[in-house]
């Protein structure tokens, strides 16, 4: 990319000398080299007027200057491209300025109907932290080597609200921007299913249209693939489309809320194909990333709250980015109503209201959940048995009681059959160390935690 910029800058400076200033600035403003392809240079121009004029009047000059700089250039073509909007100036003084009239909810509707991509999702507003850097790196690798089957298919999974959709749509938007000729298509698995069902009900002609439609893309993105579970025929169709695209070196990107191996009733042949590319996960953001995300979101909304508020929000809300965004929106709305910035004291109760209420459970209830999960009798946990099938659930129960419910070691020991507090400490440590290596244990604990 920088090669093109440099080449064009040099070309322009050599042309500049031959023209009057007015002429030069009128015709060469906002022009760039979009790409070079086998000796052909594609120059992006702001509109048809400029295209016409450059072609008729300056074509020879441009070609000659380009050739002087780089001998292999054979020709120049002009293409009208979209000029990036110049950034609007934001209010500097940090005052809260709001219009009295509410806007029509149009902003969410700027979705391109041809490729299904929402232009708001770009890498410019994508925040990278340790929680998603692997997924980001993989997507960048794809962007650099389109159509070479590095990381094909790319499979991104992670919990809801962590930016999967943003990332995969940004891949689409980026490719669209740098390779205007490539056909990009984004679809959710749900829409895909509906389309499939409609085509089936309309008979064989519609079916062949359906089959053709999805095979012509250079980049095929499917979101929320977990919803395909239990839809066997749709999966089969996806399988065929996948094969076709894959064999033609077309990039495929999927997202899901789970690793493909854990999506229930997903056909094995799809699972194995997903595994053939790159499977990366997106974790929950840590504090620094949350801070960066909040700052960026606040800036987008022209809202500049004091630093301590952002910091407080980032430290008090765990997990999901969408929840973070929701909270920030709530605070923006509150400050609109009051027409001033909220203080920390005003925000605290607000967060309390939106944070998930933690259920108050007795130790007995928690133990019951754990025992039900491992399918053992509850009584065994309280007994002095050391059988393996009892030992593990007991240790897990202790670990969860300590980690999630903050119950003291002696109390846990006392409640679980009068054990010593050192036994409890040992159990917690053991589970903690085991979880570092044992994947299935991590999953078990996660699943148990989800039940509370």
């Amino acid at each position, binding site marked *: 990319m920088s090669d093109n910029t440099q080449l064009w800058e040099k070309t322009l400076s050599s042309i500049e000398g031959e023209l009057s200033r007015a002429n030069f600035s009128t015709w060469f403003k906002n022009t760039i080299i979009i790409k070079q392809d086998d000796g052909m240079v594609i120059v992006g121009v702001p*509109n048809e*007027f400029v295209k*016409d004029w450059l072609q008729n009047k300056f074509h020879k000059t441009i070609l000659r200057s380009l050739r002087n700089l780089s001998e292999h250039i054979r020709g120049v073509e002009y293409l009208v491209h979209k000029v990036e909007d110049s950034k*609007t100036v934001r209010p500097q003084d940090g005052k809260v300025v709001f219009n009295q*009239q*509410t806007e029509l909810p*149009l902003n969410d509707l*700027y979705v391109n109907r041809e490729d299904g991509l929402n232009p708001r999702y770009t890498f410019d507003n994508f925040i990278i932290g340790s929680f998603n850097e692997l997924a980001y790196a993989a997507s960048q690798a794809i962007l650099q080597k389109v159509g070479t089957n590095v990381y094909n298919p790319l499979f991104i999974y992670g919990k809801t609200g962590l930016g999967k959709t943003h990332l995969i749509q940004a891949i689409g938007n980026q490719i669209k921007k740098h390779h205007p000729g490539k056909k990009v298509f984004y679809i959710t698995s749900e829409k895909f299913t509906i389309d499939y069902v409609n085509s089936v009900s309309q008979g064989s002609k519609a079916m062949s249209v359906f089959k053709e439609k999805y095979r012509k893309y250079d980049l095929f993105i499917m979101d929320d693939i977990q919803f395909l579970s239990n839809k066997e025929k749709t999966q089969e169709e996806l399988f065929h489309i996948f094969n076709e695209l894959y064999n033609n070196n077309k990039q495929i990107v999927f997202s899901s809320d789970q690793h493909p191996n854990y999506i229930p009733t997903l056909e094995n042949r799809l699972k194995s194909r997903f595994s053939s590319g790159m499977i990366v996960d997106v974790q929950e953001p840590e504090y620094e990333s949350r801070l960066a995300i909040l700052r960026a979101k606040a800036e987008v909304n022209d809202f500049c709250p004091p630093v301590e508020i952002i910091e407080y929000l980032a430290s008090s809300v765990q997990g999901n980015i969408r929840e973070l965004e929701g909270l920030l929106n709530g605070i923006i709305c509150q400050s609109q109503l009051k027409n001033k910035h909220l203080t920390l004291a005003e925000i605290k109760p607000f967060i309390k209201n939106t944070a998930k209420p933690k259920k108050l459970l007795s130790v007995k209830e928690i133990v019951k959940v754990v025992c039900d999960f491992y399918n053992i009798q509850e009584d065994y946990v309280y007994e002095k048995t050391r059988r393996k099938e009892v030992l593990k659930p007991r240790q897990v129960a202790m670990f969860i009681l300590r980690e999630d419910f903050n119950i003291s070691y002696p109390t846990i020991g006392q409640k679980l059959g009068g054990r010593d507090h050192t036994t409890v400490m040992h159990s917690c440590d053991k589970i903690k160390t085991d979880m570092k290596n044992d994947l299935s244990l991590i999953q078990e604990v996660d699943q148990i935690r989800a039940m509370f």
Partner: protein
Amino acid sequence: MKLICNRVLLNKYITSADRITGKNLSLPILGSVLLMTDKKKLIIRSTNLEVGVEFQIPAEIIIEGSIAIQGTLLANILTNIPDEQEVTIEVSQGVCTITTKTKHLTIKGILPDDFPTIPIIHEGEKFTISPQKFIQGVKSVITSAAFSDIKPEIASIYIHQISDTLVFVATDSFHLSERRIKQPNINLSHGIIVPIKNILEIIKVIELMNEDISFVVTKTQISCVGASFYITSRVIQGVYPDYEQIIPKTHTTEIIILKQDLINTLKLTTLFSDKFKKITFTINPQKKECVISTKNTEIGETKSHITTTISGDPIEISLNGKHIFDCLNSIEKDSVVIQFNGPDKSAVIRGLGDLSFTNLAMPLTR
């Protein structure tokens, strides 16, 4: 170059072409119009690099040639010799001489070499429509368009096709107007977004024409062709919001008012409205009462009861009076239907029994 032509015709088209010259651009030649001979015709061309226009008028060409002349000056000259029928224009060595029966003027011209060409669109999707219909479509929605250029997509008019109607849409994100015009034989695969300034120029030109006009559109350009003119404009390469989704399909309260009653009431009430032009509708179906009120701490307040047919739930809602007033001009029916969906949801305004025009207005809060 030497030619003789009709002054009235020349004046009309020079004035029109002069509107499109680029007044503030760094390239001075864009401030002029180009006169160019072509067999038995005189071609008049001007452009501001957003819009370009070309007119052809019949003329007796004696010597072929071309020249660029300051448009405003030439238009003023032609306007101020009203008694003359014919003018003779002669150019030699960059100086243009205009001769009539009684007058003799010389103007300094500019060499036409640097005058831009205007792009001719050959390939693209074509449709034909009468100028009246097109103008009606644009004019009925234009008051809703945004005037600032910050978001170019909505400082524009969106034209697209729904079955056999051509649909014109404009919105500034606070209110939205849609006009549907029946026009068979249209086949547009994509919508086009034309900047509002440019479409106003297009309208000004096609207003002068009587015959049906052919439009050619591509993803980057729109052009209109008639027997004696050609105008082309840049279109915005962007995505227009999928506005159809936000037009409410249902309503909780509906009132039907005589349009003239509403106009009269609005004229009175807006005298009292504040800088946000806020007017408040208070509708009480039980009492069969609809009150339009305004309040301004500096002037005073008004309350008008108007005769309406009311159905649905009681509601109190504030809207921008100017927006309503503007859209009433686009409604041809004598009665107006206003549908509400609650105090913080958008209101829909249409002519009674007429779905060809729809206006959507967001309520004012506070």
